[in-house]
């Protein structure tokens, strides 16, 4: 019981602190790479607090759904963070990949409907593009997680951070699944080359266009939510890599996850600086790679059996 409480406490602390910290690291790295001084690492925390204190400017056209959606989608993601072993420790509540995928879908539906509620061209455009990409992202995630589940021979997500066989050298199942999730995460967290998080040119937006009308406390929730999504997905990718390396002890896993996550965040910053954004109609081609990776991972996992 006490171990459970300690685990719960660590995960909760990470949920509260890590997402915004990672965003801070990402922004700081990016500005260093661009030879700018840039904001402090803790700037996102100050931004968050400032936004929660501000009063909101809301469109006249919006209704209760628009006002409630940030709470609903953040709740879905908080549950996601509590059922997924993204921190390297077993999740406090045992979930499985179906729950994982549909919680992400719930958050997506809430933000899509809220975007349509604004009655503007941008909201509809963002919701439409995000849904179009989701039809490739969702199978990728399901198949990659299924490959992991089959490899470990257990359907719960927690099996991912407690490698039962610990064989290591998984014949490419784990690296391929990790790569697939990483590509899917680029869409889910709107990073390059899918979407340019620094621009505010509306026509190039996908995810950003959906949250254009938010301000004040609701904007704070929405931004924290996308940071949390990034943290959970990168943490999940780390579990696949750590399983490949057959690392078992909890302390090694937690610190390994932390290191890998920061490495991925730095990589994202590098890509932000050096890559160009793809034309959005080319994106399905890129995502097909992710789907192909996860399919091959599944094939290998199934053959290995």
């Amino acid at each position, binding site marked *: 019981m006490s171990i459970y409480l300690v685990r719960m406490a660590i995960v909760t602390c990470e949920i509260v602190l890590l997402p915004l910290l990672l965003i801070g690291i990402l922004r700081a790295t990016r500005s260093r790479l661009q030879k700018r001084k840039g904001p402090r690492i803790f700037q996102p925390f100050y931004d968050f607090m400032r936004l929660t204190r501000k009063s909101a400017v809301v469109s006249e056209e919006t209704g209760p759904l628009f006002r409630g959606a*940030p*709470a609903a989608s953040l709740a879905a993601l908080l549950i996601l963070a509590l059922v997924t072993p993204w921190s390297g420790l077993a999740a406090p509540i045992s979930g499985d990949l179906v729950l994982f995928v549909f919680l992400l879908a719930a958050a997506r539906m809430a933000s899509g409907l809220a975007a349509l509620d604004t*009655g503007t*061209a941008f909201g509809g455009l963002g919701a439409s593009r995000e849904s179009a990409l989701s039809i490739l992202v969702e*199978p990728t995630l399901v198949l990659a997680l299924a490959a992991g589940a*089959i490899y470990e021979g257990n359907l719960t997500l927690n099996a991912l951070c407690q490698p039962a066989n610990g064989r290591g050298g998984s014949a490419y199942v784990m690296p391929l699944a990790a790569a697939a999730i990483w590509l899917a995460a680029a869409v889910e967290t709107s990073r390059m080359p899918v979407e340019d998080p620094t621009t505010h040119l509306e026509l190039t937006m996908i995810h950003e266009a959906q949250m254009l009308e938010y301000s004040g406390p609701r904007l704070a929730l929405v931004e924290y939510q996308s940071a949390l999504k990034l943290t959970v997905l990168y943490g999940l990718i780390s579990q696949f890599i750590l399983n490949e390396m057959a690392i078992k002890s909890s302390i090694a896993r937690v610190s390994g996850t932390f290191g890998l996550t920061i490495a991925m965040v730095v990589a994202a910053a590098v890509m932000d600086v050096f890559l160009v954004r793809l034309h959005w109609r080319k994106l399905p081609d890129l995502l097909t790679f992710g789907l192909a990776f996860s399919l091959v991972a599944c094939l290998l996992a199934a053959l290995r059996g």
Partner: protein
Amino acid sequence: MAQLSPSLPVVITLVCWLFAAIYPFFREPRDRYQAPAGAVMLGAVSCLWCAVSTFNHPAVRSLPLPFCLTVVSASFRFDWLSAWFLATLAVCTFASALFTSSYMRLLKTAPDMRLFWASLAGLLVAMCGVITSDNAITFLICWELMAVCSAMLVFTNHRERATRSAGLIYIGATRISTLFVAGAFLWIHAITHSWQFASWHLSGTIATGPAVLLVVGLVIKAGCWPFHLWLPAAHPAAPAPVSALMSGVMVKTALYALIRFFIVSSALHSAVAAFLLLALGVVTAFWGVLFTLLQRDLKRLLAYSTVENVGIITVAIGLSMTASLFGDPYAAMVLLTAALFGVLSHALFKSVLFLSAGAVDETADCHDIDRLGGLGRRMPRTFLNTLVAAASFCSLPPFAGFATEWMLFHGSLLIAIHAVQPELRMGALLLLGWLSLVGALAMTTCIRFTGVIFLGRARSRAAEKAHECTRSMQAGMGTLSLLTVVVGLGAPQITTILARGMGRSSLLPAVWTLPTAELVLLMVTTTGLLLAWLQRRDHNQADSRVPAWDCGAGGLSVRMQATAESFAQPIARMFGSIYRYAIDVQFDGTSPRLFPEQITVETHSEATLESRVYEPLVRTIGRLGELISRLQTGSIHIYLLTMFATLLLLLGIAGRYR
């Protein structure tokens, strides 16, 4: 085992529905709404009672002598499977009847309510008969009664031309379906010499022929690809509660028969049938959801999405059969439970969606979703119900749809992990990817449907004058959405009860492995806390209300919102070759490239199956019919000659095969 006396709830149900059928014939037109609706509801309650008591005490009941059908007596089997479908029927009927009385008053065509109630009661009795019948003859009689009554209901607004042609397409589909089903029954009878379902046990190659015939006949009724054409024709034509019942329950009777013959009573053991069902289901789900995405007519859209859901349930049935063929009874049970949950959850949320489509159609007088918009503010309760149903449709937790999808995914994963054959493991994984693709597409259709109709700004005068529907209509939808939540939350208990009903409670641990209670508690607290925090913020600091961001260009017009057409466009482009999708953009003006004065955009898409396969087929049949009609010269001599020739031909054939 066989009991002669029908039980009390059965009698009450039948009496109530008989009353609803007869009563309107003795009343003035304006008194033909309330009382029959009440009687149908009372009958539904008693039907639910019957289902519950059946679940605990299965029985076979035969009707007394006058009802003997020359070869066998009319007998009915009440067991857990019938009970499950009876319960589904009872809840859907209750809510639809609650909705019906004020909805039918709103209809501008003012249909004849005597015919309506009589056919509705007939349909309900016939569906109960199909679900419970214990021999082939009883089944076929009920099956036919069901077809006739539902066709009568489709014809309710028969003054409209579109309704008449839709009704004809539907009748045609039911005829072909019955042809195949009857053929299969005759074939099985020829082998087993029995009409009783209980004595049918065929396996091996001998089962293949009848099994394929039966599958084809049943999936026509269920609306699987490529026989789904009657659904998008019949559903928009019928009144909303009828569509709700047809899509929610009647289509499921075919799925019931599949489960009964191929899984539960093990009448037919056939690998071919399993793979056929699997293949049909996979194509159906994808095809249905793809065409849902392009529809602009409210009910046509829902009809296509019914096709998708039927496909998913068919996949579950086919996969369950495959699992038991390959010796994995646990996965087979999980998948069968998924199929049964699919039946119930689809009946619940699709009925809500059809009822709310009816409410929107009648209060806004418009069924083109591109001319609606912003109805959420004018009909808040209808919107809330639709939102719950849509979330269940997208299988979001904690609604009933999630339970279905969870068990389906779980079952395929079990096969993917435990199956001995690597090709089966791989197949299950591919199916998993395919199902999640369909799921993501279904969510897109849901966001499109809900968002374009209920959110944003009104796109037409019609949408501006929409208003909330009456209390009883809201109550009808509310009952079902409440049940959607209850079934979703109670999934662990319901699966346990079902496993007990199946007599499989000994088989391994519970089907449901998610910690539902914790998850629900967590969901309620996090959402509640966040909402409360936002509420307090709003209370302390009033928002400033401004026009939406328009890039400083000034004046966002209503037409700049995403429409149903534009929302679906990215996906329509991706699958352009299936839709034959094309966009024509034309610029007009003195210098069209630089300073266009007018831009016209037109999209084209085509339902390939209809235009490439069915239309030529129907045309050919029509032409053949014309050829035959040349014989009808009106001259008695020619007729006598034809009869003489036919007689000779028949005698020749009879002599040959004596």
